[in-house]
C-alpha cells in the first residue's frame, strides 16, 4: 500500500469547509512514463492494474500492467479535441458523477460533480483498503456571508484567531472587529446622544462599553453604540430603520458576555479579505449561524440544494470496482423556505456514474455494446449527422410504476436482461458489470456529435423511484390535467457497485466480453452447471389445456372453460411427436388449472374437471415420467388474474401498491393499438405474499408428484411494492424473488421461466421467450447474440413459439444460429375454438396441422446442432452480410444464411434462408 500520510510530502488543500489531505509517499509513487498521466498519482495497485487519481480534479485512470494501456474516467486532451461541447456540457466532460434532482416544483435538473463540487473544493479524498474513497458535496453549501460573522463571542473569535499562523491575518481581524459588552450604568454614567434613537428607552439602565477599556470616552462609546445599532438595522429583517429599534432588538447576550461586532463601513476588498481569513481559520459556517441566532441577527442560510455523495474506487484482482454506498448519500430534507414558510426538499432522483469512462472520440473506431435484448452494437464512428441517445432500464420497467405489464419480444421492445455494457476501442475493450443496485439501473448511451465529441455508455441509478399522480380538473370539463410527482418514501439504501474489466487483444470484442462475463457468473455461482446432452432432437412444447370463454345465456354472462386439450389428449399430442422420433421433449402445460390460462389465485392447485379428473392428470404425469419427458405446468406466481371469494388472496393485504397508494391493478390493454381502454385487469402480488404462495404451490405440486414448475413472468417482471408501512423496493423485491427461487430449486424443482433476467439464471433449467435480438432502435446497428454466448450450454433456451406471432422462418434461422431449442405451441382441438375469446392469440395451434412440421423442424435444426447442446459458444462472427458463423466449444461450426439467395462459403454452398454445419473449427488450418 502506497498511500500514507506524511507531513512533509502531503499535499494540503485548504477549503474553508473541507480540508483535503492527501498524502503520497514519494518512494511509492510510480514515476509515470507517459506525459498523459501528468497530475495523476498512484492510489492503489496490484499485479494486474494500477489505479491513479488526480487529486486536483478527482479524475481517475486505470492502467493495465500487461499492456500499459490506460483507461481514463474523463477523456484526455478534451479541451483541445472537443469542438462541439459548450457551456454546461463542456464542464460535464470533466465530471465523474451526474446527479439529477427534482426541485420542489417537480422540475428535473441535472448537475455534475465538477461544476458543483470540485470547483468549490467541496470534496474529501480518503485512502481505503486497495483504493480510495472520495466524498463529494455537490452544490455550494454556504455563500460568502456565512464566513463573515457580524456578532461573535469574544472567546470564539479569539480561538479562531489563534488558529491563524499569519500575524497579519490576526491584525486584520482586530482591525475590523470591535469588542463590546452591555454593562449596567453606574451612578457616574453620562448619557450618550445617538441620532434618531432614544438611547434611554432602548438601552434602559445599560450601556455599551469595551470591557478591555476602563473609562471609555463618550465619543468612543458613541461610536460603539452607532456600530451596534447599524448592525441591528442592517442584519435584522424585522427592523427597517433606526426609529423602529426597540429594547427587545438589543441582544441580551451582550449583557452576559463580550462579543466582537463587525465594524461599519467595510470596503468590498476588506470583506473579501476577511472571508479569506475566516476560511483559513477554519470557521464553520454553522458557528456563524449559531452566533447570529444567539444575537438575534438573521443567520446565513445554508443552501438547501446540497447533495453528499461518496464514491469508492478499489482494485479487485483484474477489475476496478466502483462503489457508491447509496445509504450514505445524503441531502437536506424539509428545509424551511427563505421566507420561513413552506419547507422545501430538493430530492436526489438519480445518479449517473462515470459517464465518460473509456469514452470514444468522434473519429475513433470501435463500438459500444448495450445489452438490449440479446445484445446490440452501436458502431463507431457514426455517419455524419447520425447521432442519437439510448436509455433503457435494466430488467424492464417496474409495473408498479408504469401500471403496465412488461411486454417482451414478439415485436415489442426487448428488455435489458443483463446488467452489463461495454466499449470496444481498437485493440482493447472495457466491460462493465453492474453488481449491485442493478434493479435501479438503466444503461444510457450518448453518441458523439450531439452534445460533445465523445461517444460513451454508462449506467444510471434511480435512487428514488418516482411516479406521477394526475389530478383531473374537476370543476370544468377541459381543465388541463395537473400531475404531481410522487416519490418512493425511502431512498435506495443498498450499494451501487460496478465492476469494470479491461480486455485486450483478441479478447477485446463482444465475444470476449461474453466469455469474461460467463466466467464471472460461473465463479460467483450465478450460472448453473452445464446441461446434460440431450438424446435426440430437443423440443420445447407448449400445450394449452383450457381457456375461458365469456358466453351469454339468455343475456346472462357466464364464464365457461373451453377445452383445448384434455389431460388424456396431452398424451396423444406428445405421443404423436415421439412416434416421429422426437424424444427429448419438455412440455410446458398451460391453462391446466381450474380457470384456464388466467387461473385464480393458486394457493390451492385445483384440477379443472372440464379437462379431466385428478386421476387423469396423475396418469399423464406418470406417462411423461416413464418416457422421460420434462413436465413444467405453468402457474402465475407474480400476477393474480382472478380474485375469488374463497381463496386466501385478499386484495387489501396481498396485492402490491402503486406509489399513489392505490392497489396495483394492471390493465391489460387490448390489441393491437394498446390504446383502447383495458377490459381485463390483474393484480400484482406483493413480494411479501410471494413466499407463502410459492410454498403452497410447491406443496401441491409435490403432492401431484410434479417436479417441474413453469412461471413465465418470473424472468421478466420485477416489481416493487410501494405500500407505505412495508415498502419493498425493487432491489429488495429482487432479493426476495431470488431467495424464493433458491428455495424451490434446492428442494428439487426444475424451473422454467420467460425472458431471462440475469437474477433468475442460477435457478432455471429451461428458458422461454429468451431475447432473440436487440430491439430495432435505429441507433443500434447490429444485434448480436451476446445473451446466447453467455448462457448456451448452461441452459436450454427457446424464443417465441415458431407457429405463433413472429416470422417462423426467421425464428428457425435464428435458433440454428444461436443454438436455441425449437419451440411450438400446440393444442389437441382445433385452434378455431379460441376464436372470439381473449385467447385468440392461439390462432395456429391445432396439433393435427402441425405435428409433422414440428418434427420436421426439430430434425432439421438438430441435424446441424447435434452434439452442441451442452457446449458453450466460443465464437460468433459475420462472414458476409446476412451470413453468420457460430462456433461451439467442440469445434462444431454452424453457418446461417439470412439472404434470400444462396451463398458459397469455402466449399460449402448454403441455400437462401437456410443453414448448414460448417467445417470443424481449425480443420482447414
Amino acid at each position, binding site marked *: 500500500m502506497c498511500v500514507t500520510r506524511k507531513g512533509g510530502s502531503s499535499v494540503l488543500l485548504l477549503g474553508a469547509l473541507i480540508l483535503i489531505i492527501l498524502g503520497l509517499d514519494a518512494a511509492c509513487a510510480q514515476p509515470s512514463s507517459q506525459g498523459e498521466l501528468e497530475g495523476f498519482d498512484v492510489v492503489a495497485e496490484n499485479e494486474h492494474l494500477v489505479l491513479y487519481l488526480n487529486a486536483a480534479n478527482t479524475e481517475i485512470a486505470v492502467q493495465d500492467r500487461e499492456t500499459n494501456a490506460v483507461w481514463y474516467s474523463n477523456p484526455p486532451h478534451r479541451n483541445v479535441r472537443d469542438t462541439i461541447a459548450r457551456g454546461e456540457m463542456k464542464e460535464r466532460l470533466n465530471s465523474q458523477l451526474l446527479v439529477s434532482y427534482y426541485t420542489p416544483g417537480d422540475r428535473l435538473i441535472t448537475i455534475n460533480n465538477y461544476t458543483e463540487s470540485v470547483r468549490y473544493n467541496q470534496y474529501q479524498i480518503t485512502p481505503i483498503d486497495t483504493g480510495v474513497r472520495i466524498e463529494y458535496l455537490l452544490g455550494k453549501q454556504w455563500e460568502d456571508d456565512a464566513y463573515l460573522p457580524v456578532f461573535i463571542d469574544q472567546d470564539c473569535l479569539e480561538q479562531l484567531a489563534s488558529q491563524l499562523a499569519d500575524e497579519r491575518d490576526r491584525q486584520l481581524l482586530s482591525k475590523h472587529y470591535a469588542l463590546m459588552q452591555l454593562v449596567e450604568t453606574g451612578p457616574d454614567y453620562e448619557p450618550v446622544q445617538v441620532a434618531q434613537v432614544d438611547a434611554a428607552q432602548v438601552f434602559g439602565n445599560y450601556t455599551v462599553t469595551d470591557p478591555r477599556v476602563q473609562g471609555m470616552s463618550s465619543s468612543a462609546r458613541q461610536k460603539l453604540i452607532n456600530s451596534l445599532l447599524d448592525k441591528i438595522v442592517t442584519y435584522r429583517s424585522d427592523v427597517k430603520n433606526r426609529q423602529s429599534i426597540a429594547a427587545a432588538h438589543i441582544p441580551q447576550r451582550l449583557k452576559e458576555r463580550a462579543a466582537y461586532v463587525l465594524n461599519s463601513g467595510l470596503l468590498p476588498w476588506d470583506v473579501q479579505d476577511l472571508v479569506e481569513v475566516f476560511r483559513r481559520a477554519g470557521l464553520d459556517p454553522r458557528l456563524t449561524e449559531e452566533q447570529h441566532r444567539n444575537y438575534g441577527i438573521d443567520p446565513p442560510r445554508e443552501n438547501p440544494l446540497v447533495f453528499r455523495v461518496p464514491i469508492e474506487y478499489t482494485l479487485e484482482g483484474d477489475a476496478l470496482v466502483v462503489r457508491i454506498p447509496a445509504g450514505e448519500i445524503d441531502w437536506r430534507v424539509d428545509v424551511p423556505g427563505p421566507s420561513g414558510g413552506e419547507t422545501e426538499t430538493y430530492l436526489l432522483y438519480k445518479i449517473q456514474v462515470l459517464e465518460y469512462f473509456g469514452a470514444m472520440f468522434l473519429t475513433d473506431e470501435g463500438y459500444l455494446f448495450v445489452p438490449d435484448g440479446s445484445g446490440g452494437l452501436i458502431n463507431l464512428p457514426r*455517419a455524419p449527422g447520425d447521432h442519437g441517445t439510448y436509455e433503457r432500464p435494466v430488467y424492464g420497467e417496474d409495473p408498479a410504476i408504469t401500471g403496465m405489464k412488461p411486454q417482451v419480444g414478439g415485436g415489442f421492445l426487448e428488455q435489458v436482461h443483463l446488467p452489463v455494457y461495454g466499449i470496444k476501442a481498437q485493440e482493447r475493450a472495457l466491460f462493465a458489470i453492474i453488481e449491485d443496485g442493478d434493479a435501479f439501473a438503466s444503461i444510457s448511451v450518448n453518441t458523439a456529435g450531439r452534445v460533445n465529441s465523445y461517444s460513451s455508455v454508462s449506467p444510471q441509478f434511480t435512487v428514488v423511484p418516482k411516479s406521477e399522480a394526475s389530478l383531473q380538473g*374537476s370543476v370544468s370539463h377541459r381543465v388541463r390535467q395537473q400531475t404531481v410527482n410522487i416519490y418512493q418514501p425511502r431512498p435506495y439504501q443498498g450499494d451501487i457497485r460496478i465492476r469494470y474489466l479491461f480486455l485486450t487483444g483478441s479478447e477485446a470484442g463482444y465475444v470476449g466480453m461474453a466469455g469474461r462475463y460467463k466466467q464471472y457468473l460461473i465463479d460467483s455461482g450465478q450460472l448453473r452447471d452445464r446441461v446434460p446432452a440431450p438424446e435426440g432432437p430437443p423440443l420445447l412444447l407448449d400445450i394449452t389445456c383450457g381457456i375461458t370463454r365469456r358466453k351469454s345465456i339468455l343475456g346472462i354472462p357466464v364464464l365457461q372453460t373451453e377445452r383445448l386439450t384434455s389431460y388424456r389428449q396431452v398424451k396423444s399430442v406428445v405421443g404423436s411427436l415421439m412416434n416421429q422420433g422426437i424424444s427429448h421433449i419438455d412440455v410446458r402445460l398451460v391453462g391446466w388449472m381450474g380457470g384456464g390460462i388466467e387461473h385464480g389465485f393458486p394457493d390451492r392447485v385445483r384440477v379443472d374437471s372440464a379437462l379431466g379428473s385428478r386421476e387423469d392428470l396423475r396418469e399423464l404425469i406418470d406417462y411423461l415420467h416413464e418416457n422421460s419427458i420434462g413436465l413444467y405446468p405453468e402457474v402465475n406466481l407474480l400476477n393474480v388474474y382472478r380474485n375469488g371469494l374463497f381463496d386466501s388472496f385478499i386484495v387489501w393485504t396481498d396485492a402490491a401498491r402503486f406509489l399513489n397508494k392505490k392497489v396495483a391493478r394492471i390493465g391489460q390493454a387490448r390489441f393491437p393499438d394498446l390504446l383502447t381502454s383495458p377490459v381485463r385487469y390483474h393484480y400484482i402480488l406483493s413480494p411479501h405474499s410471494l413466499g407463502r404462495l410459492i410454498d403452497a404451490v410447491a406443496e401441491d405440486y409435490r403432492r401431484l408428484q410434479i417436479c417441474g414448475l413453469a412461471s413465465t413472468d418470473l424472468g421478466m417482471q420485477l416489481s416493487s411494492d410501494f405500500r407505505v408501512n412495508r415498502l419493498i423496493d425493487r432491489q429488495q423485491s429482487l432479493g426476495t424473488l431470488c431467495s424464493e427461487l433458491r428455495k424451490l430449486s434446492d428442494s428439487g424443482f426444475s424451473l422454467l421461466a420467460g425472458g431471462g433476467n440475469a437474477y433468475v439464471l442460477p435457478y432455471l433449467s429451461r428458458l422461454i421467450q429468451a431475447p432473440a435480438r436487440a430491439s430495432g432502435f435505429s441507433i443500434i446497428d447490429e444485434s448480436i447474440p451476446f445473451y446466447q454466448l453467455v448462457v448456451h450450454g448452461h441452459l436450454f433456451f427457446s424464443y417465441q413459439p415458431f407457429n405463433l*406471432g413472429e416470422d417462423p422462418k426467421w425464428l428457425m434461422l435464428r435458433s440454428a444460429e444461436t443454438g436455441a431449442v425449437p419451440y411450438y405451441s400446440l393444442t389437441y382441438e382445433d385452434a378455431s375454438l379460441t376464436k372470439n375469446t381473449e385467447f385468440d392469440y392461439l390462432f*395456429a395451434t*391445432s396439433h393435427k396441422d402441425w405435428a409433422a412440421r414440428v418434427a420436421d423442424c426439430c430434425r432439421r435444426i438438430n441435424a446441424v446442432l447435434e452434439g452442441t447442446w451442452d457446449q458453450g459458444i466460443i465464437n460468433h462472427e459475420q462472414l458476409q452480410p446476412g451470413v453468420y458463423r457460430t462456433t461451439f466449444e467442440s469445434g462444431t461450426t454452424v453457418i446461417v444464411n439470412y439472404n434470400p439467395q444462396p451463398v458459397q462459403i469455402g466449399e460449402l454452398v448454403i441455400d437462401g434462408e437456410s443453414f448448414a454445419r460448417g467445417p470443424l473449427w481449425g480443420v482447414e488450418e
Partner: protein
Amino acid sequence: MLQPDAKRLFLSMLLICGCLAPSCSSCAAPYSSYTYNFWGNAVPAPHAYVPARILKSSEIGATPTSSLVDLDVHDDVVYLVDARNGVVILLDHDFRVIGKISRLVGGQGSSALSNPHGICVVDEDRILIADRDNSRIVAVDIHGNVKQEIARPKNAEDWLFPADFRPEKVAVDPAGRVYALAAGVYDGIMTFTPDGEFRGYIGAPRVRPNIIEYIWSRLATREQRERQVLFLPVEHSNVTVDSRGMLMATVSAGAINPEEVVRRLNPAGTDVLIRRGFFPPAGDVGAAYVPAFNDVLPRSYGMYSAIDRNSGRVFTYDANGNLLYVFGGHGQLDGLFQNPVAIAEMNGRLLVLDSATNQLTLFAPTEYALLIHRAIAAYNVGRYKEMEAIMQEVLRLNSNYELAYGWIGRALLMQEEWARALEMFRLGNDREGYSRAFRELRRQYIEDRFGAIVLVFCAALLCWALVPRLKRRLLTTGGSSEPAPSGDSMASPTKTTWLRELLNGLAYGWHVIFHPLDGFEKLKSEKRGSIASASTILLMVTLTYVVMRQYTGFVFNPRDLDRLNILLEISSVLVPFVLWCVVNWALTTIMLGKGTFGDVYIASSYALIPLIVVNFPLTFVSNYLVLEEGAFYYLALTLGVAWAVILLVVGTMVTHEYTLVKTVYTTIFIVAGMMFAMFLGVLFVSLLDRVYLFVSDIYTEIALRT
C-alpha cells in the same frame, strides 16, 4: 481468428459486396399484425410482411438536407424523388445508387428540377416528373433529356386551368393520358391528352361537412362564419393507375365521407371501388385517430395496398374490399414509420418510403401472405378446389381469419357441399353465403321428405277443420268441469282468485288488440286489466326482446351473442316504456285527461301485446328463412311495431277520453316530453360523473398528502 481461406473469402466478399447493406438478420416485425373480425374487433394474425431491409438515407444517396417524397419502381430500378435537392435518384435491384437525374437537357423551361414532388415511370425513355415549383410536368428519359413539357398553355383563355399550376403527383394510363394532382386545385384530378393538352378534371371528391357543422354555419352570423375555419374542399393526396387503366386515388384529409378515402375511378370519374367487406376499406375500424391515406398501390387481381400516415400502417384489401392483412406501424423502431409517403412493389416485395427519416424499408412477404395471394389468384381463374386447399393452409396459420372461412365456404358451395359450407360460413360470419348454403340445404331437406311434409300438412289441415267440431263436442260434454276450479278456490280463495284475475286480464289482452276502442274502454271502466296483468305483459315483452336477440336465426342476427347483456336489453325496453307512461300521465293531467297513472300504465302495457304476438313466432321462423326472404321478416317486424304504436295512441285516446285531433297533438307532446326527459337524464348523469370525479380527486389528493 478466421482461417486463411475464410479470411480470403471474407475479404473478397467484402470487395464484391461493396456498399451492400447488411441483410436484416436482426430485423423482425416491431408491430403486431392483426385483422378485423365481423364485429370490428382486432384479432391477432401472423405477420404478412416483415421488414427485410432498412435502407438508411445515407445508403440510398440522400444527403442530410434531402427530403424524399415519392417513389416509383420500374424494371427493377427504384426512382426516388428528392424534393429539396431537386434530384431523382436511381437505385438498382440491390439498392445501390446507379444514377441521378438532376440536370435536364433540352426543353423550354428550366434545366433544373425545382421542388419535384411526384414521379411516374412509364419506361426508361419516359419518366414523368411533377416539377412543382417550375409549374410543369416534365417527361424525361433516364439521362435527363426532356421529351415533353406540360405547363400552363400560352393562350391561357382556358379559365378552368389553374392560375397557379403546381403539380404534385402524376400518373399515366396505358393509353398515354396523363393525370396530375396540383396543389390548391380542388376540382379533381387534372387530365391531359398524351400530347399534353388539358382536357379538364375528373373525380372531384364530394365535400361532406358533418351535420352539426352544417347547422352551425346556417345559424352563425357572417362574422362568426368568417372566423370559422373554411370548409376546404377535399384534395386528393395521391393518384395512380391500375393495370386495367382505372385511376386509384387517395384522400388524406378533409370533410369527406370516411368510406371514400380510397377511390377507384373509371374513365368517367365515377368511384367504382367495391366496398363489400365487413368494413369499408378505410383503415382501422373505430380508431381514435382520423386515417389519412398517402398513397395506394394497385396490385394483381384488383388487390390494393394503401398507407395511412397517421397509424403508419399498410392496409391491403382484395377487389371486393375485404381486409386481407395489415402491417407496419407508427414509431421509431426499424420497420415502423414516422411519415410514410409512398409505397411500391418490387419483385413481390414492398418498398415504403418514409419522408421523415428519408429511409426506405423493404418488406418481404411471409408464407402467410404468399398463401393468401395464391388463393386469390386461384379463385380469380376459377380453380376453386385449389383455392380451398390453399385456404385450409391459411387457416392452419391463422384460425382467426374469418375471410378464409368464407372463401372456403364459397368453394364448397361450388362443390355443392352444402352442410360443410354452412359451417364454414358460420365460422366466417358470412351471412350471405350462409343464407345461400342454407337455402340449398332447406331445398334438399324438403325434396327428400316431400311425401312426409305433404302428409303432415294434410294432417294439420284436417285437424284445423275438425278441431272446432271436437271442441264444441267437448264443451258440451265437459260443461260440468267448469265449476271444478271454483271448488279449488274454496280451498284457497285468495290465491286462486288472484291467479284467475291475472289470467283473465291476460286473456282480455287478445280482445284489446283486435278491438282497441272497446277493449281499452273496458280496460278502464270495467277494470278488466290490472296492474298485475299489465306487469306480466311488460315482463313478457322484455323477455321477447331477450329471446329475439339470442334466438333469431343467424342470417338475421348480426350481433355478438357472447357479449349479450341482459340488463341492457331489459333497460332498452323498460326505460322508454316508463318514460312514456310518466310523461303521458304528467302531460295529460294538465291537459284534462281522464286517466290515472294506473290507467295509463295498464293501457300502454296492453298496447305492447302485438310485439309479443308477432316477435315470438317470428324469432322461431327466422331460423328457417334465407336472406332473400328477409323482406317478409322485416315487414312482419315493422307491422308488429306499427300495430303497437297505433294501439298506444288509441289507448291514450280512450283512456283520457280525448278526441282524435287532441290525441294526435298530445302524442306529439309526449314524444317531445320523452326526449326532454332523456336529455335531462343525460345531463344528470354527466353531472353525477363530475361530482364523482371531484370526490375522487379530493380523495386522491388527501391520500397523497398524508
